[in-house]
């Protein structure tokens, strides 16, 4: 139970246990003492016999506080029962009722939630009559809208899920879905919330009693004790300490326990962090050469040079000793399946690896390490394009100002100059009427337009490198084509180096001269994209064979790759692809092949 380890959950649990024990034993141990009148010692402050003083009947306040635990907790339980009995069905109803009735109940719940709980409680208590019964009904009823709304939100999420849709298609009725899918999936968060509600009921009841609207004498709970002792706080402050502390500790105990557990259970479980497999001794790193394309790396004109780039998160290393370089005007593709480390490589090249990732190796932009570049140089010489254009622009700001800020922040441009530049750049990515587009908000743009705007944003400086991470995965094919053509064109006309990351071999091959194929964090092959069908690495071959295109032979089953890519925590010692490789030798499983001439394989394909 790792979720129990937060201090608030532990504190809550401890307080709840103490409260429950006191509720059971309190009246037995201190009940008689709490009821004993002592007319000679009324309204006393602290004394050795009465540590917290006495009340107007000379009864010991400490004993009364301890004995009141049962009454206070019991009333809170009753109130919570009312809340649960009404709130959960009311919240679950809309998912069972027809649409019109559902809308009505939802509207009612939403309206009621707007009222302060305490006022609702006072209103309900007033109707039910002053006294313990009225207070319990009041507090119980007042919490109903909140619980109902939470139940509805949870139930709606489940009801809208694909697995419920699947059950409906299979013919399951509304009540069967409620019992089989909805209730089990909302039970845990609901139970935790109800625990927290118990705490709030305890506090609410104490509040009503304090105001004189709750428990009436001769009965007493903590709130009533507070009500009676409050006027004396100015003389003997210690007399309120007992009931005040009791309410505070018990109430917050339940609330903390429920809330912290509810939060913990709502959190997505974190992937286990296992120690990485021991990596092979790091030899003299060789430069990856594209076959037949001459020695590009080491050449001084390379805009981007990446050497032994390794990215780790704790013990997990999703990117391992990646080396490559990109020349001016060149567009290089990185291809791999999900989990291959290609996106993280892109982020590392952009200097954007999120905390707590650590980056080892070298990334040189224009011959200088990334770390040495100033913020301004990075902001103008490096441009990034991300996958989801719907999320990449700030919804609250106009598109024009999101472009212009690059110029004001880094180029010392005035607002007017920056604006002009932004409009000019929007025109350059061929958005019609750039003047008007600059004044719009991102939600008024289509996906393709947004991706163009992001590319234009990269052009605000004088980019030497453009990194595009799956820039068209979220777009339709017809839009994808135009955006990729724009990227290639920008690449060519500005002379910037380009890095195009994609899961789609065909996309990369169409626009990039060179392709790097990544598997389990490493580059396994580097080759001209025209050579993809004649790839030498079995993984590249298999990937090409598994991607259907418009010429694939329909009479034969599609090639598949058995097994799955190892997670970065479980990469084996030898070649990571060996367990899925038909050509694997004994050596492949023990000895990792270093890249030689753009190929990391002991037994490459020949023809």
């Amino acid at each position, binding site marked *: 139970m790792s979720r129990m380890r937060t201090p608030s959950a532990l504190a809550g649990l401890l307080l709840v246990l103490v409260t429950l024990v006191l509720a059971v034993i309190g009246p037995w141990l201190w009940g008689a003492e709490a009821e004993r009148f002592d007319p000679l010692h009324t309204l006393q402050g602290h004394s050795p016999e009465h540590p917290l003083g006495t009340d107007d009947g000379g009864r010991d306040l400490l004993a009364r506080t301890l004995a009141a635990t049962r009454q206070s907790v019991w009333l809170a339980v009753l109130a919570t029962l009312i809340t649960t009995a009404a709130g959960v069905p009311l919240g679950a109803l809309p998912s069972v009722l027809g649409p019109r009735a559902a809308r009505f109940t939802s509207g009612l719940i939403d309206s009621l939630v707007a009222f*302060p*709980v305490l006022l609702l409680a006072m209103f309900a208590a007033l*109707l039910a009559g002053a006294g313990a019964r009225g207070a319990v009904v009041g507090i119980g009823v007042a919490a109903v809208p909140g619980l109902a709304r939470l139940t509805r939100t949870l139930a709606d999420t489940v009801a809208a899920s694909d697995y419920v849709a699947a059950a409906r298609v299979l013919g399951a009725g509304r009540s069967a879905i409620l019992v089989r899918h909805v209730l089990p999936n909302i039970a845990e968060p609901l139970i935790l919330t109800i625990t927290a509600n118990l705490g709030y009921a305890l506090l609410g009841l104490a509040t009503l009693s304090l105001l*004189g609207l709750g428990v009436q004498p001769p009965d007493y709970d903590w709130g009533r004790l507070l009500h009676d002792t409050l006027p004396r706080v100015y003389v003997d402050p210690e007399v309120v300490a007992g009931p005040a502390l009791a309410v505070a500790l018990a109430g917050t105990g339940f609330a903390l326990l429920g809330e912290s557990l509810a939060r913990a259970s709502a959190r997505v479980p974190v992937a286990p962090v296992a120690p990485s497999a021991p990596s092979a001794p790091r030899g003299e790193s060789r430069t990856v050469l594209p076959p037949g394309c001459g020695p590009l790396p080491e050449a001084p004109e390379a805009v981007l040079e990446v050497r032994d780039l390794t990215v780790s998160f704790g013990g997990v290393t999703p990117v391992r000793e990646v080396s490559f370089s990109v020349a001016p005007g060149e567009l290089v593709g990185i291809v791999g399946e999900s989990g291959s480390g290609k996106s993280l490589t892109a982020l590392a090249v952009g200097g954007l690896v999120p905390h707590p990732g650590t980056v080892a190796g070298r990334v040189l932009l224009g011959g200088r390490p990334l770390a040495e570049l100033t913020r301004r140089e990075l902001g103008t010489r490096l441009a990034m394009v991300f996958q989801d254009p719907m999320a*990449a*622009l700030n919804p609250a*700001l106009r598109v024009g100002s999101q472009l212009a800020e690059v110029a004001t922040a880094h180029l010392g441009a005035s607002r007017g100059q920056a604006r002009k530049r932004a409009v000019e750049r929007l025109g350059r990515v061929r958005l019609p009427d750039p003047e008007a587009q600059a004044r719009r908000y991102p939600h008024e743009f289509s996906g393709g337009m947004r991706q163009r705007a992001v590319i234009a944003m990269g052009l605000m400086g004088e980019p030497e490198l453009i990194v595009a991470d799956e820039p068209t995965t979220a777009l339709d094919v017809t839009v994808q084509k135009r955006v990729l053509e724009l990227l290639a064109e920008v690449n060519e006309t500005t002379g910037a180096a380009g890095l195009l990351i994609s899961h789609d071999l065909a996309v990369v091959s169409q626009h990039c001269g060179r392709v790097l194929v990544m598997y389990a964090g490493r580059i396994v092959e580097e080759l001209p994209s025209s050579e993809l069908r004649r790839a030498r690495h079995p993984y590249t071959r298999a990937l090409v064979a598994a991607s259907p295109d418009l010429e694939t032979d329909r009479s034969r089953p599609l090639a598949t790759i058995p097994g799955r890519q190892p997670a970065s925590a479980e990469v084996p010692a030898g070649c990571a692809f060996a367990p899925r490789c038909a050509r694997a030798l004994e050596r492949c499983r023990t000895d990792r092949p270093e890249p030689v001439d753009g190929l990391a394989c002991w037994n490459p394909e020949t023809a």
Partner: protein
Amino acid sequence: MFLLRRATRFALSLVLVVLASFAMLHLIPGDPVRAALGPTAPREAVEQRRAELGLDRPWPEQLRTYLGKVATGDFGESFLSRQPAGQVVADRFPATVQLVVVTVALALLVAVPLGMAMAARTHGGRGRRSELAFTSVTGGLSVIPEFLLAVAMIALFGVVLRWLPVAGKDGAASFVMPVLALAAGPTALLARLVRMETLRELSSDYVRLARAKRLPAVRLYLVHLLPNSLTATLTTGGLVLTSLLGGSVVVEYVFQWPGLGGTTVEAIAGKDYALAQAAILVYGAVSLTVVFLVDLALGLLDPRSRPRMLG
């Protein structure tokens, strides 16, 4: 469209409040006039009072009269003091408004920068200790009820240290304890919300792009993040502001603040139903108005809910 929907719901809820306040007198078990005047009051006095209040008429007629009166601002007479209830509410309400407005201002001024700063410090799993301290402190504060803080502060600052006045409303110093007692919970809750929403925004793509543009931190947080996390916070946190209205009743009672809260408690305890009716009507209407205004502000702040520009 959005505006219309909200306005309709607002209007319907207001009607609901008026009906509830009317129904109140009729839902109370037993005879409210007898209860108010006490068991010893002579039968004639009770009958006369009932006639004065129109309680002997059929209820549809009573409802019509009631609606007419409410529309003209006439809330009837206090059962006990025989003053017009509307007058009592009008006398008392400004003190409540002062208390609540100062509290809301304080809560927002503290919670927003604090939440954002904590988000900046703790995002991506860094600053584990700060995170623990923040969540523990705000978690505790957000569940401790106002009256406990009030009592504790009175004991400490009022009685033991004698720094601050313990009751009443007299000058700036008298605001300190009530405002703090009332603000602590909502501030803690809002600060948590702001942090959560800011963290969510921090992991979004547009922030990643803004980082890729290497914008200065001030611009990133104030221009890019603030509007988004603020609207997100108010969407879920708007109700915190109305719950504050409920808390003010207790705080006013404990500090003997001359506001509407204390009057309401007295009216309920003393079975002064006309006054309670008026007070509940006012509280209900104000809560609804606050929620409505927050909704409106959100609609205006978020460009996505504005009508689409053409051309």
